[in-house]
């Protein structure tokens, strides 16, 4: 083991990890094992040869795709493409579906993974209409419907769950609104996948973007682009897709190859497949635990003087994300004290979601965000409450 590895191992051992909204850690052992085995043994380039090693790797990815599709309610696994992350999936959706002159209705709680591509498109002549959430971060389907009906609209974009407030948005209702006007429904599922039971087909999402490394518990570097049959974004990246399709002068349109140019991230996809299998087996129990832990944290924080929590009251539906603000002590100071004194990992700032903080009135202050997930316990949550009390005391 290198000296750097010894150092990070010691740091990891003393960390109370409460930043699952950013990325999940630790990973379940089956995920670690799948990634390690992929690096160590699955040496062939999947789809680039028919010798045994390449076939085995292609089968590994094939199985991972099926497992992920089954977890998310994607009926045909070929409608699920492995990309680098939810950010890439959202870029493909937005830039691949919208063109100058189109109109899109988006929600004010969106992450920069949606806001920034939309700002690029706006500069190119796409009409982007923002609809505000209420003070708890919740979107009103009636307001979205009113915005959609004002003019022909190509797409509605909304997160499934907020990375700031944990708010679960009514994306099924929004999909109905979109489809009633002939628009596509694009959903950012980065904070929802792995934390909620998801059935992409039942939700009516035409695009559902998933991060592999957050609630899904996989490694970084993999995201899932889930498409309905009706929705065919242009490919943003062109390149090799393997085998005999090489003689095509342009990117093939068959799924999933259209969105998977270049050599796949085999270790990452192997990890995502193992993670999806793990979540399928343990997710239901984990969801109950997460709900309980986030409510415990929420109630604990509200009992402290000077603190408030963004979003809805305790025990209302939310994914296990909780952002807190103190009336006097800055969020970054709290995060620093929690880390240095207690080894608690939590994230201060705007969480790549300035639009959401603007909606919530916390753009100037930011907030300290706790993200609860696999491996967390009541002791972790109680320590966080105690640490906040002492840090702000």
């Amino acid at each position: 083991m290198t000296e750097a590895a010894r150092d990070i191992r010691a740091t990891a051992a003393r960390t109370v990890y409460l930043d699952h909204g950013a990325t999940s850690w630790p990973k379940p052992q089956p995920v670690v094992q799948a990634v390690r085995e992929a690096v160590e043994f699955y040496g062939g380039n999947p789809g680039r040869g028919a010798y045994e090693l390449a076939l085995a790797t292609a089968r590994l990815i094939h199985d991972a795709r099926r497992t992920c599709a089954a977890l998310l309610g994607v009926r045909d696994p070929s409608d699920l493409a492995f990309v680098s992350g939810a950010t890439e999936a959202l870029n493909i959706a937005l830039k691949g579906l919208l063109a100058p002159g189109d109109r899109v209705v988006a929600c004010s709680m969106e992450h920069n993974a949606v806001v920034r591509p939309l700002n690029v498109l706006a500069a190119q002549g796409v009409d982007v209409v923002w609809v505000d959430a209420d003070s708890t971060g919740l979107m009103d389907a009636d307001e979205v419907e009113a915005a959609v009906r004002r003019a022909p609209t190509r797409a509605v974009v909304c997160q499934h769950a907020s990375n700031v407030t944990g708010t679960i948005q009514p994306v099924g209702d929004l999909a109905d609104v979109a489809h009633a006007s002939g628009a596509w429904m694009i959903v950012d599922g980065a904070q929802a996948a792995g934390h909620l039971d998801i059935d992409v087909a039942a939700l009516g999402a035409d695009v559902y973007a998933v991060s592999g490394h957050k609630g899904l518990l996989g490694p970084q570097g993999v995201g899932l682009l889930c498409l309905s049959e009706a929705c065919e974004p242009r490919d943003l990246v062109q390149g090799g897709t393997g085998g005999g399709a090489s003689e095509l002068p342009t990117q093939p349109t068959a799924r999933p190859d259209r969105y998977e140019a270049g050599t796949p991230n085999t270790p990452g996809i192997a990890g995502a497949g193992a993670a999806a299998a793990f979540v399928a087996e343990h997710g239901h129990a984990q969801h109950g635990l997460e709900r309980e832990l986030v409510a415990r944290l929420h109630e604990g924080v509200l009992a402290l003087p000077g603190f408030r929590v963004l979003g809805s009251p305790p025990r209302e539906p939310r994914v296990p994300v909780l952002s807190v603000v103190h009336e006097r002590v800055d969020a970054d100071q709290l995060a620093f004290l929690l880390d240095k004194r207690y080894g608690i990992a939590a994230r201060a700032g705007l969480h790549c979601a300035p639009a959401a903080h603007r909606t919530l009135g916390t753009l100037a202050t930011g907030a300290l965000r706790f993200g609860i997930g696999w491996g967390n316990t009541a002791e972790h949550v109680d320590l966080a409450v105690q640490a906040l009390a002492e840090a702000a005391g």
Partner: protein
Amino acid sequence: MTPRELREFVVYGFETTHAALDAEDLLKAGGVSVVPIPAPRALGVSCGIAMRVSPEETAAAERILTEGRVDWASRAVMHDV
């Protein structure tokens, strides 16, 4: 020296690796002897993995693939060497 007998096979090509492996799984589950092979140039545009089936089993193979809604992009009769 006895001339080597050339065996005949039917080879199916697919648009994507995913479809090729779907086909392999379906055919194996259906009891068809299938061998994944590098896609021959004769198949034209297809993914790099083709599925080789004996002529006696092609009817069963095509029924299984059709029922399983896995389309083959190309089909060719090939001779082993």
